[in-house]
């Protein structure tokens, strides 16, 4: 009885402090056997019209609103111009765009690499700290509750603990001879700038972005999964240019992903002792293909912005 209360007390005391800590330190790639872009038989999440009109339905709708327009509906936790749905297309439904229905049933997840188990709440908190360059919402607070309810609802009928086809972003093999930043810039100018702007700055309507920024102060930070060139290439190949997913050759997807990720963006919040080198060694050296701490055009990347 006594130990129980102390534990609870410690937890509740601990939260405000922990909120500024890193919720999910391991942001390395989700290793998935799935990702068969040719398959058309994906899990079908329920339709919006099937959502019950009760308190549960309202919580799910709140979660959807946060996911689609994060800055308006969870402003305290967002530090850039992005929304969750910018990277998880079709409001978190699209197969091969890291859909929520394929994620929800895979947590708690054990990672051998650092011998840790991460809960779904921690995964969501990680997205806020890295992809959204913000703060982790309280694990037992309303934002995580709403996002979890939305994910749970999308996963209605999905088997628990079984990896579904269409999870994450399907890997695109790296071109022989590596990637080429100059060619990536050409792809960018021809295929991306019309929406994302000549300098990756995005385009707004009113105060909110319609076309999200790809680099710079309003984009994802150096700790986000999208900073890996291989992950960005996979996302881009499958989803960009918007409405024309799957049309870029693998090589173009890699080159333009590398070009995008060869620009400065907000610092990795896991920065160790203010040292890019130490942070690179601990978190980036073995995390896919990335340019954090590398010298590009005579400048070291990863200083933050």
């Amino acid at each position, binding site marked *: 009885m006594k130990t129980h209360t102390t534990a609870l007390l410690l937890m509740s005391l601990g939260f405000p402090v922990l909120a500024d800590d890193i919720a999910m330190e391991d942001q390395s790639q989700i290793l998935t056997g799935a990702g068969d872009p040719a398959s058309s038989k994906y899990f079908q999440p329920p339709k919006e019209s099937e959502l019950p009109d009760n308190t549960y339905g309202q919580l799910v709708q709140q979660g959807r609103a946060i996911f689609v*327009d994060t800055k308006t509906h969870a402003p305290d936790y967002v530090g850039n111009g992005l929304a969750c749905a910018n990277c998880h297309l*079709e409001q978190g*439904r699209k197969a091969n765009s890291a859909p929520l229905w394929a994620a929800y049933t895979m947590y708690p997840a054990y990672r051998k690499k650092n011998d840790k188990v991460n809960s779904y709440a921690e995964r969501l908190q990680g997205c806020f700290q890295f992809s959204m360059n913000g703060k982790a919402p309280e694990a037992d607070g309303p934002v995580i509750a709403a996002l979890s309810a939305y994910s749970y609802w999308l996963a209605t009928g999905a088997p628990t603990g079984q990896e579904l086809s269409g999870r994450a972003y399907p890997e695109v093999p790296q071109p022989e001879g590596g990637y080429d930043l100059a060619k990536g810039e050409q792809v960018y100018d021809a295929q991306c700038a019309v929406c994302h702007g000549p300098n990756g700055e995005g*385009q707004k*309507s009113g105060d*909110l972005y*319609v076309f999200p920024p790809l680099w710079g102060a309003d984009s994802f930070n150096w700790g986000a999964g999208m900073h890996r060139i291989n992950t960005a290439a996979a996302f881009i190949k499958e989803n960009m*240019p*918007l409405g*024309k997913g799957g049309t870029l050759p693998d090589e173009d997807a890699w080159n333009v992903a590398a070009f995008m990720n060869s620009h400065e963006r907000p610092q990795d919040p896991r920065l160790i002792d203010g040292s890019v080198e130490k942070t690179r060694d601990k978190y980036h050296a073995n995390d896919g293909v990335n340019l954090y701490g590398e010298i590009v055009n005579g400048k070291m990347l990863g200083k933050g912005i």
Partner: protein
Amino acid sequence: MNVPLWPLAGLFLAISVSAHAADAAAVYSKGGTNPAAMACATCHGAEGEGMAAAGFPRLAGLSANYMRKQLADFASGARANPIMQPIAAALSHEEADAVSTMLADKPQPQVERIDRTALVDGPGESLALSGAWDRNIPECVACHGPSGTGVGDAFPPLAGQSAQYLSSQLTAWRQGTRKNDPNDLMGQIARSLTEDEVTAVSTYFAGLTDKGAAK
């Protein structure tokens, strides 16, 4: 000592601005130097508000660069239309430039902001706010902005245009007479729509007002 010069500078500025504006206004209401460049106001309305029943589009508040590009595309034939092609071809560069700038400064219609978080009702709104991703069709507002009010120079507003005009353009892409969009971004979407969807989504955007969507 410098102070007395200011009113003069202001006067000078006012003269040069109004000289420029007079040009554009004359082209708009009386036509260009070449008589084939007919007065725009005849079809696009005194204030550029368009003529819904005839399917003549609104021009007030569109991006100047978007209009310049459309006039150049009519002139070159990249956008085919029997009415506008000879008119655009007869406009000089300077006239096209001036009239586009003038029209861009006019007010856009006020519509309530409806974005992807709204609950969708009906097939038109569903396409507009959720798309039809099983056929790779993104929601219209992902490119045309919330309520379809337009974004930057490349994505024109849909709100404020009539259903007749909107559906005529979607049909033009489906039939291949309009193919001037960057990288076929719009063409491949229009070609994936059914006729019923063209009608529903055109009616939806045409019905947006400052009080939201027509229900």
